[in-house]
């Protein structure tokens, strides 16, 4: 009796194991077009639709995707996790994997992202329960380039022209390359300080730089002649719907 019972159990177990492994090939994952949305609070939400088609013999349980984005030092920049508790055999389910990045915080904490190209590390884990009882997990590491939105940001030599008897007009050329994957639309506010750290002039200009493009413009100041000095510094503030940053201190003279 024990022999017959164990044989029957063995047959069930072997058939179950083989069919479960075999039917993994009938589980299909399709990744849709990633989408980017900017929330009102300046957070950028990346959405990746995932279509799961389960044509296997068994249901899939605890499907989950986790993504972690970190910098070269291992500091976590963004993290996102999505899960589908159950995908029945023969069903198709669409899940959306969301990841939120607060660019404002990110760039305020590390100005490297604003002005220097770097690499980001993405760690993705995809897990599921084959036939709801066999946990399977696939994970991968990859590096993606990060393009700085204000790469090679330069304020040129100030050129002064007498405007009237009390004021002079100072023109400062501005240039940078937008290496980021998004367009930059916003304003750049520049404050000019003389060598006594007194505010000499203030100006702001609209910036509109398409991604992967070169920006060339200038800012103009009307500065009281009494406050004009050969040396000093600029304080630059960037205000865009995605992020705000400042002050960036650049000496002149």
């Amino acid at each position, binding site marked *: 009796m*024990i*022999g017959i*019972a*164990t044989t029957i*159990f*063995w047959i069930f*177990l*072997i058939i179950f*194991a*083989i*069919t479960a*492994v*075999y039917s993994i*090939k009938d589980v299909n994952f399709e990744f849709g077009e990633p989408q980017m949305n900017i929330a009102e609070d300046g957070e950028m939400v990346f959405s990746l639709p995932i279509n799961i088609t389960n044509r296997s013999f068994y249901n899939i349980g605890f499907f989950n995707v986790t993504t972690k984005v970190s910098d070269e030092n291992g500091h976590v920049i963004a993290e996102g996790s999505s899960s589908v508790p159950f995908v029945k055999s023969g069903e198709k389910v669409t899940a959306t994997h969301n990841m939120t990045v607060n660019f404002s915080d990110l760039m305020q904490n590390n100005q490297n992202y604003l002005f220097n190209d770097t690499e980001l590390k993405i760690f993705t884990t995809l897990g599921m329960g084959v036939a709801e*009882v*066999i*946990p*399977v*997990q*696939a*994970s*991968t*590491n*990859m590096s993606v380039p990060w393009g700085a939105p204000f790469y090679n940001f330069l304020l040129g030599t100030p050129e002064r022209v007498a405007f009237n008897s009390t004021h002079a007009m100072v023109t400062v050329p501005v240039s940078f390359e937008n290496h980021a994957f998004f367009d930059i639309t916003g304003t750049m506010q520049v404050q000019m300080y003389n060598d006594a750290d007194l505010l000499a002039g203030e100006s702001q200009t609209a910036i509109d730089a398409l991604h992967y493009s070169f920006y060339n413009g200038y800012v103009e100041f009307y500065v009281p002649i009494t406050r004009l000095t050969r040396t000093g510094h600029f304080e630059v503030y960037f205000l865009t719907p995605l992020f705000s940053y400042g002050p960036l201190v650049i000496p002149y003279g």
Partner: protein
Amino acid sequence: MVETADNLKTKLRKFTFKALKATVKGVIFYVIYFVLWTMFLAHAAALVPGLQQIIETFVIVYIVLMVVGELTSGTIYRFFFDAAKALFVIGYLIFSLKGGVIDVSFENVNLLVDLRIFLSIAILLSLLGLAKSVLGAINFMSEKAEYAYV
């Protein structure tokens, strides 16, 4: 003299029957393995390196123990081989499934399969087989002692 010849004939017939039974069992087991391999497992072998070798080694040893066990049926050795078969299954499953957690890497993708539930059930079934062999051996010895006493 006639009695000895008859005894030899009976022994030869018994052994031929055992050998035939062992061959049939071995062939059936191999055919089942072959069908399962070609239908299902060959696809998985492309993904898991060394799978074919692991399964073939298991099948060869299992068939050998099964055939030897069948040839020694009617003796105490049959139970030894049955117990060895059960212990081999337990040991080989633990060894080949790496304790139930298989970690395979393809380029920069790491795949982790947790087969601990499957392994636990398989070990329990093998332990049942081992218990059956031990009980069979005890029963065989007590029956033999009973006949000797009578």
